[in-house]
């Protein structure tokens, strides 16, 4: 089961845009600073993905865990456990964030538990169907997302006020904060090093295409919110969602519920990607050979705490922008693949 470079690009993009379209303004960072730091964050990502690219080019049918097993079994097992924990954590964080948004934007709609269970069940199902199903579905979801964006821009464009756009000067604190913020939301860097065996060809095109597309859309969304809402952005928690609540389409007076539909579609794809990415390496470790273990256990381990914290109404949003999360992503997405590459080369030269 292989996917094309375009499909991988879309998968990674959707995974990232899930957070970007619920771009929120909890921190005391202006949207102008956010735009500038996003660009810097993407530039950083472009450097951080280099080990993944080299890993693919040297060992195209292996991901970081499989390569680690070829160095030594113990090393492989350790990495399997690490990435498994990361997948569980990301599932927890994604589900909790989803429920947080849902509670704030659609508080009267459904009980949180029902929402969470349905989301996890759908993601587990898509993950069970495999990477091809997720990749092909993502193309369709991407098209729907673009349609939503076009509808929103088209119906709000006449109310854009150019005076709402400004460029704020940034300092080193902003730069560092932006990089940390961007990194802690970029779990795709880690997912990338795990899904490499699924890729047919074209890693560079895929990865850099994803980063550029991400930058384009993140900037576009922040700019849209700035131009339309202006100062109102500071009063609301999810500005893009608020813009959608004003936007219209033929037969539909508000697009906020459509936003929910699109966001849910994207969220399911994102969640399924975490367990799908574990699968190539799962054949090497006996407990993981059962697909139910690889598929369901992370969802249970990650989803249950998320549902619990949602029930307790405890905010876990600080987890989103956190130095620890950023460090973990750099470690698992860049440092470890680099170490594995070096060790493989060392072992090859020794032999």
């Amino acid at each position, binding site marked *: 089961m292989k996917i094309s470079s375009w499909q991988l690009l879309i998968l990674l993009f959707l995974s990232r845009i899930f957070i970007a379209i619920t771009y929120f303004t909890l921190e005391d960072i202006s949207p102008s600073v956010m735009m500038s730091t996003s660009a810097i964050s993407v530039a950083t990502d472009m450097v951080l993905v280099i080990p993944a690219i080299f890993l693919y080019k040297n060992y195209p049918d292996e991901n970081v865990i499989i390569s680690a097993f070829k160095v030594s079994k113990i090393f492989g097992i350790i990495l399997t456990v690490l990435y498994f924990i990361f997948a569980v954590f990301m599932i927890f964080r994604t589900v909790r964030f989803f429920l947080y948004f849902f509670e704030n934007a659609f508080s009267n709609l459904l009980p949180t538990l029902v929402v969470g269970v349905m989301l996890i069940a759908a993601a587990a199902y898509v993950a069970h169907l495999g990477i091809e199903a997720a990749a092909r579905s993502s193309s369709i979801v991407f098209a729907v997302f673009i349609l939503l964006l076009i509808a929103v821009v088209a119906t709000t464009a006449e109310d854009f006020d150019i005076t709402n756009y400004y460029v704020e000067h940034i300092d080193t604190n902003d730069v560092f904060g932006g990089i940390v913020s961007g990194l802690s939301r970029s779990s795709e860097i880690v997912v990338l090093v795990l899904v490499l065996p699924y890729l047919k060809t074209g890693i560079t095109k895929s990865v850099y295409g994803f980063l550029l597309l991400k930058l384009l859309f993140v900037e576009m969304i922040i700019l849209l919110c700035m131009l339309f*809402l202006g*100062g*109102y952005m500071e*009063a609301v928690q999810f500005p893009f969602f608020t813009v959608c609540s*004003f936007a219209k389409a033929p037969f539909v*007076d508000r697009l906020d519920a459509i936003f929910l539909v699109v966001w849910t579609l994207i969220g399911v794809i994102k969640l399924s990607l975490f367990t799908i990415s574990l699968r190539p390496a799962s054949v090497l470790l006996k407990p993981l050979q059962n697909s139910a273990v690889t598929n369901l256990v992370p969802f249970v381990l990650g989803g249950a705490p998320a549902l619990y914290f949602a029930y307790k109404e405890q905010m876990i949003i600080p987890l989103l922008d956190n130095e620890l999360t950023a460090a973990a992503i750099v470690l698992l997405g860049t440092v470890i693949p680099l170490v594995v590459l070096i060790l493989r080369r060392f072992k090859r030269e020794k032999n």
Partner: protein
Amino acid sequence: MKRISLLCVLILLVSIALTGCGGRKPDSVGIVQAIGIDKANDGFNLSLQVFRVSSSGSQTPIDSSKTNVEVISAEGKTIANAVQLCENQLGKKIFFGHNQLLVINKEVEDIYSCLDYFINNDDAYIGMIVAATEKKAKDIISADISSGAVAAETMKKIFDISKKDGYCTDSRFYKVISNYINTKGTAVLPLIEKRSQAISDKSKESGEPAQDTLEIKKAILVKDSKFSETLETDEVFGINYFLSQVDDADMTVNTSYGTESAKLHSVKQNAEITEQNNSVAIDKEITVRITLEKEESKDHIDEIKAEVEKKIKEYIESACKKLFYENSADVMNITSLIRQKDYKLYKKLKDDPDEFIKNIKTDIKVSAVY
């Protein structure tokens, strides 16, 4: 096994759906069309214009010749409290998603606390018009306007037309809040009045009850979350021309050939900001395209253009005088403009906006194009 479980899920879903669990009937929510907020002894008096179907039966549509609304009121310490009491009165959950208009009585002391409730309400429509009134807000939203399915539809149309003609500023909810946040507590709201007029002389003679209508000619300034000065019609025009919010407006000018009418279209603008002697200077160029109502007027187009330019400049200058110099109020996006053009200057001024607004120098150039 898989097929059995899928079948079970299907049967379960359909059975649950048949029990009526989940969802609400659309008629189980009270659809609010307009909101009025008056001052009460201890808090607010909230009035809601709620849709109430005048003809029932699943085949008959709503009857446009009837008002199809009812107005309910409740007093509460806060808006949320008042809303809850209204729900108790109505026996339905209140839905603000289609609310068109929010009218606030001039005597209400804290405007922002009124608006804050709607910022946090998931359903509230951010494009609703926010207006003020010197009379009771309840009277405004109780206006007996029988055209349209509900009165609020017609009210909104009145606002839309008035805005296009320059009589009313753009007071959509999110715009008001945006300006409020940018300028730390300033906004301008249209002032709305209710008038009763007979439909025709015949109906007047026969003693038929007069129809209500709304009139918007003035505006009111909000400063530090309180209502402040009233702005006259000319000053409202000035704001709208300054912000290029006029389109398809009529203007009557006096020329040596008599009174002439011109239609104004697509106002364009260009602004430059400079810092001069610790104060801010704004050079504004406004271009207006005009069309004439009478073909003969073409012969003295230059004079008409000159008069139009003069009039627009007068409007803007009177608005600037009232707003900047007398009230230190920025409702014309000056702060945003400075922030956009010169962020360093903005940083210098943002902590004391009143001071720099009071000392602002404006140089307005208007050119009319035919």
